[in-house]
């Protein structure tokens, strides 16, 4: 949906740019968020590899001797003192996939709201009816977002059980701060989506409301792109 159309549809007064102020505001907000996450990511990268004690993200660690190994378990380490690399890549890969799919659901929700009332825009049959349901796609996005948060809760809990807290070492401090901030953003996004879903259930969202959904979609996709960066920089690069 073009911004100028949104301005007219939502009864927004004419502006000097011809653009809706709310959409300018969300892009400015996203721009400022870029700098917030840049500061958190750079803090993580600066502290990377400077922890004096484990557990470490990609290395095995022997607590008794403080020896580390990137290749495998450390020989002659007493039982109970050996810590494996703490990052669980398979689990995080799944949560990354879940978040990527939530972005797909979000664009479909926006398309459904923008095209509501247009006969047959999504094609014939049950597939078309499925595509036309903004409630379904908003709910799907919120569920996938909540699913991502469940993965994160599982990850944080398992880290604490394995001995890594925000106070343990520099890795723990920077990791929990960065991913915790991201998780807080996802939580806000899920609440936002549930609010839109409630409005949709109560009175229905149509083309007049497309800008409201567009703005929340921009926020949601931004949360997704931030995770794309975090997944590579924190989890995959050793």
């Amino acid at each position, binding site marked *: 949906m*073009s911004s100028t159309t949104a301005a007219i549809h939502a009864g927004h007064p004419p502006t000097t740019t011809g653009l809706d102020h709310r959409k300018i505001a969300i892009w400015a907000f996203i*721009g400022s968020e870029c700098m917030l996450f840049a500061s958190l990511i750079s803090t993580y990268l600066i502290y990377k590899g400077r922890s004096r004690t484990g557990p470490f993200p990609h290395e095995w660690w022997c607590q008794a001797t403080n020896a580390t190994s990137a290749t495998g378990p450390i020989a002659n380490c007493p039982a109970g003192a050996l810590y494996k690399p703490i990052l669980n890549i398979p689990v995080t890969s799944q949560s990354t996939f879940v978040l990527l799919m939530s972005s797909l659901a979000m664009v479909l929700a926006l398309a459904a709201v923008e095209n509501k009332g247009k006969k047959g825009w999504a094609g014939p049959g049950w597939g078309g009816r499925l595509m036309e349901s903004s409630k379904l796609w908003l709910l799907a996005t919120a569920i996938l977002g909540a699913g991502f948060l469940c993965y994160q809760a599982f990850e944080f809990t398992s880290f604490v059980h394995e001995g890594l807290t925000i106070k343990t070492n520099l890795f723990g401090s920077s990791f929990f701060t960065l991913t915790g901030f991201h998780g807080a953003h996802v939580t806000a996004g899920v609440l936002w989506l549930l609010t839109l879903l409630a409005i949709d259930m109560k009175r229905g969202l149509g083309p007049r409301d497309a800008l409201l959904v567009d703005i929340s979609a921009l926020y949601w996709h931004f949360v997704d792109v931030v995770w794309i960066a975090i997944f590579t920089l924190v989890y995959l690069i050793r």
Partner: protein
Amino acid sequence: MAHEPVHRSSTESVASAEAHAAGEVHEHPTWATYKWVALILTVITIVEVWVYYIPAFVASRLFVPALLTMSAVKFVIVVLFYMHLKYDHRVFRALFTGPLIIAMTTIVALMFLFAKLVIRTG
């Protein structure tokens, strides 16, 4: 003269609204595009995780640049197609790319400042 931009934008808005009312297709991508974007993002993610488990590749000098490139491609694809920046007004593009460039420059500058990145001469 000062009111001219307002008048022009209002005219454009009315024209756009009329176009919308007439059922004209907007510049946004279609379902097929969204589907392909999702598929490409999934494939790139799979490749990223796959190369993480190849010790020879992890040890090579290509590992980090390859991961950064794949991540950048995913980032750009989402921003262009899902956030519609490819189709949206240039003001929005400037509002996003400006701070993004500042943010990336800050990260790189801090990496040099704390000796995480080093330029070797001689």
